[in-house]
C-alpha cells in the first residue's frame, strides 16, 4: 500500500520530522526507532528532545550518563541532543550579536525577561531545531545532518510549538525576530523539508487527540505525514477459540490454569477494543498508518528499539 502520493517525498527523505502525540503514548520510543531506521539507511540522523526530558539518553542507558544539551553519538550515524531553551538563547545571541549578544546572554535580567516572555522558550527551542537541520550549521564545528527528528511535547503544546514561529513573526512584524520567525515558519510549512508524525496508542483518548491534531494541522496547512499506532497487542486468538477458552475455564480445577485463561480472555478483549480504535483512526487518516506491537518487557531498551525499527523498516517509509 503506498503511503504517499503526489510530489511529497517519502518520510525519511525530508530533513526535519516532528514526532508528536498525547502524553504517555511512546513518542520518544517512536522518534528513536525512526532514528534507527534512518541511520541504518546511512543517513546522518539526530533525535532532538525538547524541554530537557532526557528520555532518549535514558533509553540508551547502556551508554552511561551523557552530557546534557550536547550533540551525542548513540550509535554510528545516530545522534541525540536535549535542547535547553536557555542554552539555545545564549548560542543564538553569540552568533547573531557577537560581543553584545554575549553580554546580553550573560545578563540575568535579560535572561529573566526572555525566559518569561510567553512563547519565547518554544521559539528558542524550535530555532535550535531549525539550526540543526541547516546544511550550513551555525554551531561552530557542527557537521550537517541528513535528518533531524524532534521528539516534540504533548499534542496540545506540540501544535503550539509548530505555530510559535509564525506567531512571533506576526507579533514582532519587523526586526530580527520577525525575520527569523518567518524563515522558520516557512521551513515548517514546506512539505519537501518538514514532516509531522503523530503517535497514538489504540485507546479512545489518544485516538481522539490524534484526530483533533489532524484537523488542526489541516487548518494550519501543515501536513500530517504518518500516524504510528503504538502498542497493539498481537492477535493471539481466533474468534471461535474464545468459546473454547470459556469452556476450559469452567472445566479446569487448577487455579493457575484459571489465571492463565482469564489473562487470555482479558487480553483478547483489550485487543478487540484496540483494533476498533485503530480502525477509527485509520479511516480518518486514509491509511497513512503504521502499527507497532506492544513491547512485553521491563522497559524499552536498545534491543526492543531494534525490533521496533525493524517493523518500521518493513513499512517502507
Amino acid at each position, binding site marked *: 500500500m503506498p503511503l504517499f502520493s503526489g510530489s511529497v517525498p517519502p518520510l525519511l527523505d525530508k530533513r526535519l520530522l516532528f514526532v508528536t502525540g498525547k502524553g504517555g503514548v511512546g513518542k520518544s520510543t517512536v522518534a528513536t526507532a525512526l532514528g534507527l531506521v534512518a541511520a541504518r539507511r546511512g543517513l546522518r540522523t539526530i533525535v532532538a528532545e525538547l524541554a530537557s526530558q532526557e528520555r532518549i539518553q535514558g533509553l540508551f542507558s547502556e551508554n552511561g550518563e551523557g552530557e546534557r544539551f550536547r550533540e551525542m553519538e548513540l550509535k554510528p550515524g545516530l545522534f541525540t541532543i536535549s535542547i535547553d531553551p536557555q542554552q539555545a538563547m545564549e548560542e543564538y545571541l553569540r552568533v547573531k550579536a557577537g560581543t553584545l*549578544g554575549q553580554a546580553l546572554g550573560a545578563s540575568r535580567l*535579560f535572561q529573566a525577561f526572555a525566559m518569561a516572555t510567553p512563547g519565547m*522558550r518554544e521559539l528558542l527551542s524550535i530555532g535550535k531545531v531549525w539550526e540543526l537541520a541547516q546544511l550550513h550549521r551555525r554551531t561552530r564545528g557542527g557537521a550537517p545532518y541528513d535528518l533531524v527528528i524532534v521528539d516534540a511535547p504533548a499534542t496540545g503544546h506540540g501544535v*503550539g510549538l509548530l505555530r510559535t514561529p509564525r506567531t512571533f513573526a506576526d*507579533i514582532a512584524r519587523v526586526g530580527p525576530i520577525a525575520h527569523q520567525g518567518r524563515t522558520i515558519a516557512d521551513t515548517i510549512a514546506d512539505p519537501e523539508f518538514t514532516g509531522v508524525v503523530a503517535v497514538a496508542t489504540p485507546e479512545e483518548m489518544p485516538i481522539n*487527540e490524534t484526530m483533533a491534531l489532524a484537523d488542526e494541522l489541516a487548518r494550519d496547512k501543515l501536513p500530517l505525514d504518518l500516524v504510528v499506532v503504538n502498542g497493539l497487542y498481537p492477535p493471539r486468538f481466533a474468534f471461535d477459540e474464545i468459546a473454547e*477458552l470459556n469452556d476450559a475455564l469452567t472445566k*479446569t480445577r487448577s487455579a493457575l*490454569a484459571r489465571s492463565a485463561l482469564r489473562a487470555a480472555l482479558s487480553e483478547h478483549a483489550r485487543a478487540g477494543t484496540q483494533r476498533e480504535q485503530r480502525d477509527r483512526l485509520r479511516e480518518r487518516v486514509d491509511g497513512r498508518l503504521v502499527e507497532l506491537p506492544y513491547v512485553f518487557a521491563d*522497559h524499552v531498551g536498545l534491543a526492543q528499539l531494534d525490533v521496533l525499527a525493524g517493523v518500521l523498516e518493513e513499512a517502507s517509509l
Partner: protein
Amino acid sequence: MNVAEMLDGKRVCVCAGSGGVGKTTTSAAIALGMAATGAKVAVVTIDPANRLANALGVEQLENEPRRVEPARLETGTLEVKGELWAMMLDPKRTFDELIDRIAPDPGRAQEIKENRVYRELSTAVSGSQELTAIAKLYELDQEHRFDLLVLDTPPSRNALDFLDAPGRLNAFLEGRALKAFMRPTGLGIRALGRGALPLLGGLRRITGIDLITDLAVFFQLLGDMTSDFSQRAAQVERLLRAPTTAFLLVTSAAREPIDEAIWFGQRLEADGLPFAGVVVNRVHHDLLGDREPREVRRALARVLPPGLAVRVAENFRDYHVLARRDDHNLGRLAGQLDERRLLLVPQLDDDVHDVEGLLRIHRYLFGSQAERERLIDDLVA
C-alpha cells in the same frame, strides 16, 4: 487507607500525574465516589474522552460546573447520596473572565483582550492551561458552593509542569523583570545602573522594536493590575498549601510514570504541599507466585488442544513479564512513601468511559483495606 479516608476533611483534591496514566478517569471516579458518601462534589477537567464527557453530560463548553443528572448515576450498585457536578475547563474563557474581574473598567478589559500579546498569551502558550485551571479552582473555592473540588490537572508529559508553569506565566504578568525595560526613562532603568541602556538597545536590536512596543503597550494596559496578579498568585499559593487541600498522584506502574510519581512526591514534600496518596492504574498483579511456568502449560494441556494451550501459555508468560515489572516499580514507589497511601487499580479488560466503568474502579479506590485485599486475592486465585 482508601480515598474517602485520604480526603476526609478536605475541600480540594488536586489529581496530578504524567500523561496517559488515566488521570481524567481517576478524577471522575474519585468525584463520583465522594458524591456517593453524601458530599456535593465538582470535578474540573480538561478534555475528557468524548464518551466520558457524554456520560457525565458535560460536553457543552460552559466553563461552569453542571450537575450530572442523578438518573445518569443510577446503576443499582452504588447509591449516590450527595451531588456530582462536572465542568470542562475552557482556558481561553477562564483567562478572559479573570481579566474582566480584575480590570478597573470594561473598556480596559476589552483593550487587553484585543491586545496581540494577550491573545497569544491566553491561548497558545504553555502554562496558560495550568494557570487557568488553578485560577478556576481558586474561584470555585471562594464561592463555597461545593464540599469538595476535584481538579484533573491539564495533560502534560511531565507532572511537575503543573507546579512550575503557572509560576513562569505569573512572573511574566507581574512583570518583575520587564517593568525596568518598559520604562526607559523611569526609575527602574536608573536603578539598574549604567549597564541598562546598552542592554535595552541590544534587546531592541535582537527582538525588533515592535515586539518591545507591543509588550510596553500590554504592560501599560495591565498597569496596576499586575499587583492583582501577584496578590492572586499569593492567594492561590495559600489555597494549594492549605491543610484542607490534598494532592493525589495518579500513575501507571510502568517505569517512567513511577519515576515521575516519585519525583513529584519528593517535590511536594520539599515544597511543603499536602500529599494525600497515590493511585496506581493498570497494575498487572503477579498471578504465578512461586509456581513454575511449566505448571501453567501442564494445567492448560488438560483442558485445551495443544496449539491453543501453547498460545494461552505464551500470553501468560508475556503478562507475567509485565507483572514482574509492575511489582518491581511498585516496590520502588512504596520505598519512597507510606505504603498505606498506595491504591492499586488492576489492568481492566476495557477502557473506562462511562458511569459503569467508573463503578468498576470505585471498589479499588473506596473499598476498605480488607475489601481491596480480597479483590486482589480473587484476581490471583
